[in-house]
């Protein structure tokens, strides 16, 4: 894959020539809810040509998925689809079941978001691909198997034979998505619909899958409809973009037009809301040219950037790093880990599992430390141990001055300590009790800690609602009456209720849409400035850390591989893993992303 990119770094999209593969005219989708038609998509018009990637971008509820599933009649039975969908000139809407079945999987294939659940867990990957092949072509089982193996090879699975025999759960997330892509390509589709194909994947795996898709697009000359909420993914892959909001396409155009000259205010707002690695926080932290930083750290040349310019950018970067003042830490550390190891205790016959080893980390009052890593790196484990939810197996962990390494589970010491620590959880929907009004959820920690009761408690609850910018009369509402962003505000208010010295935030915005995420992060940042709590911010998203954190710790496989100030990590990453992680984050800008991609290819080829 790297060879391919080195050969042809500048992929110019083939402009739409001749008849489009897919032509959508006046497509509307409605869902019947409580005997009323609720529109999900209204009068959509677009077309896709062979070898072209059209990205349909929007936030949840914009109708991007529903309208795309409607192309193949994959919507539930309470839906109504009108308009016209033509595939190579042939109408798809309103044809009978047998005819649409012949199109599904053969002419139009779909890649779904969750590779774990999108493949049937009880059949081998090979069996599922063979099923598709034999359904659409008259071949013997042996021929079908050979075809499946060729497909698995095409998607660059290291051992196609083994993948063929594997069940989905035996493959990693990225491998599963490759298998899914192999299945969808097995009948040479004219059109590929990719519904959030990389959303469930880690950032380095995402970059690999994006490389693969770009590679395949050029090899196979299929048309691709890419549905995503991620502007970085769009910048990486799309030739043309349609921006959707509340069922309407508000703007469409080439990738360059949309990114460099967005016309509609929603597009502008959406682009502004995307956290952009290197962009820094709300106040005037200088923007970091991560590409130049990586180029300098790895001594790479980038073909698409003139050498003088690269040198200039690298110099500017080095100067900024030298100029960046490192704030002297003050006061007693709020959280201090010395050579900490954390085990998941053994359960039945499952032996104990060491999730974190040799972790050293200090957080001073008022400091925000971002803990970044991919899934399974142990970042959440450290967060959970910091509030005493997991025992420390070795080393010492001091929280707010107390050594809790040997503390008894559910003992008095942990109980005392938790008074000074607040926690915000990842999923705002499941971390609030659905049967408690949110006012009670917010007030519960204060009540339990006997901090306040009666009128005093009510007053504090109102203050907290003010702080997280929710109306006071929301206190009697139940969680299901609130939106995701509002629920997460409640989660923050609850974590703040005891005026904690340390806040542990575990991926608090990863379940939110970008525009909502931007607002919640903004609020969080303001509260942190105002109240001055220290924060351990756990996330997989480097761009989010960049907005918030003073210091960044990078974790890989249970170890902290690199830590430093934001500038040190972003401007001068030393560890190979940090470099690879930074290089894998797609930039919401097609030109910058092209540079980044080239750099990443060099980084990977240099490593191997």
């Amino acid at each position, binding site marked *: 894959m790297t060879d391919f990119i080195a050969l042809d770094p500048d992929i110019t999209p083939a402009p739409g020539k001749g008849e489009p593969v897919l032509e959508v005219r006046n497509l509307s989708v409605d869902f019947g809810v409580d005997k009323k038609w609720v529109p999900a998509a209204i009068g959509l018009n677009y077309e896709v040509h062979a070898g072209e990637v059209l990205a349909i971008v929007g936030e949840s509820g914009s109708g991007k998925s529903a309208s795309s599933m409607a192309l193949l009649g994959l919507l539930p039975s309470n839906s109504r689809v009108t308009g016209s969908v033509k595939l190579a000139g042939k109408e798809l809407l309103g044809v009978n079941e047998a005819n649409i079945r012949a199109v*599904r999987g053969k002419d139009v294939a779909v890649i779904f978001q969750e590779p774990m659940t999108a493949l049937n*867990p009880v059949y081998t990957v090979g069996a599922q691909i063979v099923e598709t092949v034999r359904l659409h072509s008259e071949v013997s089982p042996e021929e079908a198997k050979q075809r499946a193996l060729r497909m698995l090879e095409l998607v660059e699975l290291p051992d196609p034979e083994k993948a063929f025999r594997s069940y989905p759960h035996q493959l990693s997330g990225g491998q599963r998505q490759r298998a899914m892509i192999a299945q969808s390509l097995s009948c040479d589709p004219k059109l590929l619909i990719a519904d959030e194909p990389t959303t469930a994947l880690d950032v380095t795996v995402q970059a690999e899958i994006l490389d693969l898709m770009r590679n395949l697009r050029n090899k196979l000359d299929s048309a691709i409809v890419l549905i995503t909420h991620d502007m970085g993914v769009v910048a990486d892959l799309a030739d043309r973009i349609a921006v959707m909001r509340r069922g309407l396409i508000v703007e469409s155009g080439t990738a360059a037009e949309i990114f460099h000259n967005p016309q509609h205010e929603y597009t502008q707002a959406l682009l502004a809301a995307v956290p952009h690695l290197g962009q820094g926080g709300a106040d005037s932290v200088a923007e970091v040219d991560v590409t130049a930083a990586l180029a300098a750290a790895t001594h790479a040349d980038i073909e698409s950037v003139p050498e003088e310019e690269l040198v200039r950018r690298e110099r500017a970067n080095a100067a900024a790093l030298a100029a960046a003042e490192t704030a002297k830490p003050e006061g007693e550390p709020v959280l201090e880990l010395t050579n900490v190891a954390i085990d998941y205790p053994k359960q039945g016959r499952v032996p104990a599992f060491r999730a974190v080893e040799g972790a050293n980390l200090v957080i001073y009052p008022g400091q925000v430390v971002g803990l970044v890593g991919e899934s399974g790196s142990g970042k959440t484990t450290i967060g959970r141990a910091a509030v005493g939810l997991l025992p420390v197996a070795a080393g010492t962990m001091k929280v707010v001055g107390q050594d809790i390494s040997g503390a008894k589970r559910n003992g008095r010491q942990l109980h005392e300590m938790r008074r000074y620590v607040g926690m915000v959880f990842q999923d705002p929907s499941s971390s609030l009790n659905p049967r408690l009004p949110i006012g009670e959820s917010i007030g519960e920690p204060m009540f339990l800690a006997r901090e306040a009761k009666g009128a005093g408690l009510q007053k504090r609850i109102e203050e907290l609602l003010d702080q997280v910018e929710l109306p006071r009369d929301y206190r009697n509402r139940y969680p299901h009456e609130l939106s995701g962003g509002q629920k997460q505000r409640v989660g923050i208010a609850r974590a703040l209720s005891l005026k904690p010295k340390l806040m542990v935030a575990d991926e608090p915005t990863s379940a939110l849409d970008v525009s909502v995420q931007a607002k919640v992060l903004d609020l969080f940042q303001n509260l942190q400035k105002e109240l001055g709590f220290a924060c351990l911010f756990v996330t997989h998203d480097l761009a989010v850390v960049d907005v918030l954190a003073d210091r960044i710790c990078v974790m890989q496989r249970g170890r902290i591989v690199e830590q430093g100030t934001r500038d040190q990590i972003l401007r001068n990453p030393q560890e190979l893993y940090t470099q690879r992680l930074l290089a894998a984050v797609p930039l919401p800008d097609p030109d910058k992303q092209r540079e980044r991609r080239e750099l990443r290819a060099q980084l990977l080829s240099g490593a191997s």
Partner: protein
Amino acid sequence: MSTYILRRFLQLIPVFLGATLLVYFLVFSLPGDPIVALFGDKPVNEAVAAKLRVQYHLDQPFWMQYLFYLQSIFTFDLGQDFSGRPIATVLGEVFPVTARLAIMALIFEGVFGIVFGLIAGLRKGKFFDATVLVASLIVIGIPIFVLGFLLQFTIGVQLGWAKPTVSSAATVQDLILPAIVLGLGSFAYVLRLTRTSVIENMNADYVRTATAKGLSRFRVVRVHILRNSLIPVITFLGADLGALMGGAIVTEGIFNIPGVGNRLYRAVLSGEGPTVVSIVTVLVLIYCLSNLLVDLLYAWLDPRIRYDN
């Protein structure tokens, strides 16, 4: 896998010892003197009674009685019941009858429960689904002896479609009606379990993938939905086999079937310790083995479950 099976068999040993000890103790603690009961209305002949007590070790303390019993098991001599017939012979007579009954009930509840549950699940919210749901609730709500007498009276006596009682041979034909009665309660559970499971799987992502591949509705249901939906159902059916064997007492009573339940009931009444313990021990073993079978089936149906280490 083989180490797993071996381990499961080793686990049977403590289960076996525990079950026999517990049941033996319960029978031992029953009030009344079984030897006196043997004489019925006749005056007790003390000499004969003393001889019988020695023969059945009833003069020994509890622990000795239990050890004598264990010894008899391991020498494959289960002793005799109070009418002087070898217990092994008695077991050989009653277990095949009840096994036949239980397996017929299992087939009935499995086949009909899964078929009805599948159809109801696929037509969620429609007329068939609603009807079947209400009917299954009624079946679950009515105690088995009421259902038993009701069916015996209507189908057996009034309509004459089946014999109201079972002959001593207890042929398959004789047992159809009792098997339906015995399996009716579990049938309702299997139906509901299948229905819930099908509804859950219908909305699964992989079913959408299967549809997007272009598979026909029939193939999506048969290949992709059914197998995934059967996993919890199979677990229930396996555990139910043991329950049906031991739980046939009422059904056997109603239809006068010469099976385990009937014999066990009589043995409990007359305080025949060894007979009760032998029957219960075999039931416990059947229960354990059917559970093992379920776990193996489970691994076969769902490749995510593996029992190595």
